[in-house]
């Protein structure tokens, strides 16, 4: 048998595999442009993304930065979509039918992975086109001082990034889908690196958005192709790992899983948290807050989470100790790390309510005899209290390490009002985080109409990158370690005033439409999408 025959044999699909692939693909097919309306939506979304990209990255960003940011976006979308799909399998009503299909377990998982990659390639192509569009628009309007290269160079850059994007799609999808095998047993430890991989890329936005052509010898077209090859190899490894984990552990765990009980099946007895033991629950809003806080108290009490947090504390202490010799570098690193606590609350806000609706917990929550804005406020305060406590602990250990690291660091910040720069950085990121959380609340309004949904999507998605990109202007490198001018403090006060106005407003708006989640569970959406697909076919 020749090599070609062997390859054809390997790629040949059994009829059952084909049917399985069609089954999985059907779940995505309705998202593709298929009629005039959906073509219009797709066109509108791409134009909105291009406009958002031109507004956010139009001034002073190199072409390399734009394509690199696009690559990061492709990876993040693939990873989050893969992870999201893996999560829905556990609670999907079709789960037991799916498990009962008479095909090898690996075929079940392979079909899901291939179909997920298919739709991600469409999204990646859209992002790639937006990056090219961005370059072309800037090339057309820039004067001699612009950062865009000539048309030929832009074309080479675009062509070089195409295989990179193509490699990042399966890499992100398989990495995200590996969640399928991490629900029970020792595999739950893998959630720790998985969560780190899902959140860390947000921290890279600051770095990638400031790439200069001259200062970036690693971003030539040849290098990008090498990265693409590296990405493809990593994707192959991620595929094998994901398949092994899902087939060996995920599928047997799925068969044992009871919907709605994720992660709670192993310990039958309730673990009491400090607040419950001491009886400090309170009544009214205090009880509402205690209910929301209990979620974080539970997760924080899990051994893997505590160990990981202890690891981060150790890293912060050592980092602070070593950083005392390079105070400015420490401050820069702190700035990059602050992106993460800015994003976590908004992710929690964006996910929690729809997750509760999927788990049929939302009706109990909405049925509590409190105005809805108070329900949301309790949720908002609980997530921020958790994030501030966790990051406050890390900052305290970092500061302690810094103080122990030698007098050079302390001396540096004791001169010329430099200590003020630390407070400025912390306050600016805190306000940014609050603003991003407020935007996340507005997601509820998208349930009102699909047009609002399409309009919100680029805005909501762009908001996650505010801490990594827009904060470059609010907290420029030149400001670190210097004296903060009055103009900056005034701008900070204006930002605080904006946040004080926007947060209650967005909570009120969200409260108006939050009940619509009841009609928009994943199951409801799939059913509606199925109805649409059927109408389209017939």
């Amino acid at each position: 048998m020749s090599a070609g025959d062997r390859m054809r044999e390997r790629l040949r699909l059994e009829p059952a595999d084909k049917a399985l692939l069609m089954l999985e693909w059907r779940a995505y097919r309705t998202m593709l442009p298929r009629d005039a309306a959906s073509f219009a939506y797709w066109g509108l979304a791409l134009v909105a993304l291009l406009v958002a990209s031109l507004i956010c990255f139009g001034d002073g960003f190199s072409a390399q930065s734009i394509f690199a940011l696009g690559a990061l976006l492709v990876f993040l979308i693939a990873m989050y979509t893969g992870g999201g799909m893996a999560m829905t399998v556990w609670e999907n009503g079709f789960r037991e039918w799916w498990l009962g299909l008479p095909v090898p377990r690996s075929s079940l998982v392979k079909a899901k992975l291939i179909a997920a990659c298919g739709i991600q390639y469409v999204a990646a192509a859209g992002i790639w086109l937006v990056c090219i569009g961005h370059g072309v628009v800037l090339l057309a309007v820039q004067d001699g001082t612009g950062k865009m290269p000539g048309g030929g160079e832009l074309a080479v850059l675009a062509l070089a990034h195409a295989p990179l994007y193509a490699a990042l799609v399966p890499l992100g999808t398989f990495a995200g889908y590996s969640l399928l095998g991490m629900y029970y047993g020792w595999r739950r430890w893998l959630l720790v690196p998985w969560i780190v991989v899902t959140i860390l890329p947000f921290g890279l936005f600051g770095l990638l958005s400031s790439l200069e052509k001259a200062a970036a010898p690693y971003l030539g077209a040849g290098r990008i192709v090498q990265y693409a090859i590296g990405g493809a190899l990593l994707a192959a490894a991620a595929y094998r790992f994901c398949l092994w984990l899902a087939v060996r552990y995920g599928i047997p765990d799925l068969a044992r899983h009871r919907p709605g009980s994720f992660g709670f099946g192993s310990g039958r007895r309730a673990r009491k948290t400090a607040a419950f033991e001491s009886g400090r629950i309170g009544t009214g809003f205090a009880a509402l807050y205690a209910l929301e806080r209990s979620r974080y108290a539970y997760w924080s009490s899990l051994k893997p989470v505590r160990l990981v947090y202890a690891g981060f504390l150790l890293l912060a202490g050592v980092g602070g100790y070593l950083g005392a010799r390079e105070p400015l570098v420490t401050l820069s690193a702190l700035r990059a790390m602050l992106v993460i606590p800015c994003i976590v609350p908004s992710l929690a806000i964006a996910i929690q309510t729809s997750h509760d609706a999927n788990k049929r917990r939302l009706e109990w929550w909405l049925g509590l005899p409190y105005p809805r804005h108070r329900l949301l406020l309790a949720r908002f305060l609980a997530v921020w209290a958790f994030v501030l406590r966790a990051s406050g602990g890390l900052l305290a250990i970092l500061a302690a390490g810094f103080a122990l690291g030698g007098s050079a660091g302390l001396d540096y910040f004791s001169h010329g009002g430099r200590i003020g720069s630390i407070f400025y950085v912390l306050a600016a990121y805190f306000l940014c985080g609050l603003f991003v959380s407020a935007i996340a609340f507005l997601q509820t309004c998208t349930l009102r109409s699909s047009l609002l949904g399409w309009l919100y999507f680029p805005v909501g998605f762009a908001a996650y990158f505010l801490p990594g990109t827009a904060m470059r202007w609010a907290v420029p490198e030149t400001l670190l370690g210097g004296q903060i001018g009055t103009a900056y403090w005034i701008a900070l006060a204006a930002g605080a005033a904006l946040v004080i106005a926007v947060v209650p407003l967005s909570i009120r708006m969200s409260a108006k439409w939050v009940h619509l989640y009841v009609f928009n569970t994943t199951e409801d959406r799939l059913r509606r999408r199925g109805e649409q697909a059927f109408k389209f076919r017939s």
Partner: protein
Amino acid sequence: MADMRNPDFNIPNVAAAKAPAIRCVDVTLRVKKKIVLDGVSFEIPVGSLAGLLGPNGAGKSSLMRILTGMFPPDGGRAELFCAPAGPERLGVLSFLPDRGQLPPHLGAGEWLRLAAGLYPDWSEARMEELIVKLDVDRGQRIGSMSRGQEARLQLLTCLSRQAPIIILDEPFAGVDMVSRESIAQAVVGELADGERTFLIATHDIREMENLFDRIVLIGEGRMLGCHDVETLRANGRSVESCYRDVFA
């Protein structure tokens, strides 16, 4: 009992209320262009145990969600003690959602302690009584409970409140026979004071037929009948035969 912390959620004096506990007038609801409820009208007097009956997809859960203020109707009026249903009226009713779930990370005891703080009309004495009656283990984590155990805990939460209206959406769905019996007995026990009003959506007509004093029949979002059970019996019919006549 009035809640001083939430003046918007005051509970009316039920004894003084002569108006029906629940009134729907021409209630209409559309979800994404689909008509889910189409001009539904009925009344439930104070102290009744009413059954809301109809096949799957009839609109029972949607109607209950309107009554519990989850969302407003697109047309018509839904009233509780003559005031429009809405989130600000959640203090007058206790709602058990269909296949709803409680936070799985909490133990049953933790949840009940939180509920005592969350619901201004919570009765500790009733809760203690129901814990025994419904055989709820306070130390068990909710996420590890069987469906029947969690259904009993949810019913306990509903009935430990002193709200004058109790709305139960499919309380027997997916529940074993022993749990069904204890749930039905708990509901019977709650009827003793004659002041609370129950509206129960269920498919298990046989389980509840002897308890209902009124039935509301809806199908495909439309009102198909509202009958006094005594009158039905006086005419030689049962709830089950009436249901079959309408839907078979």
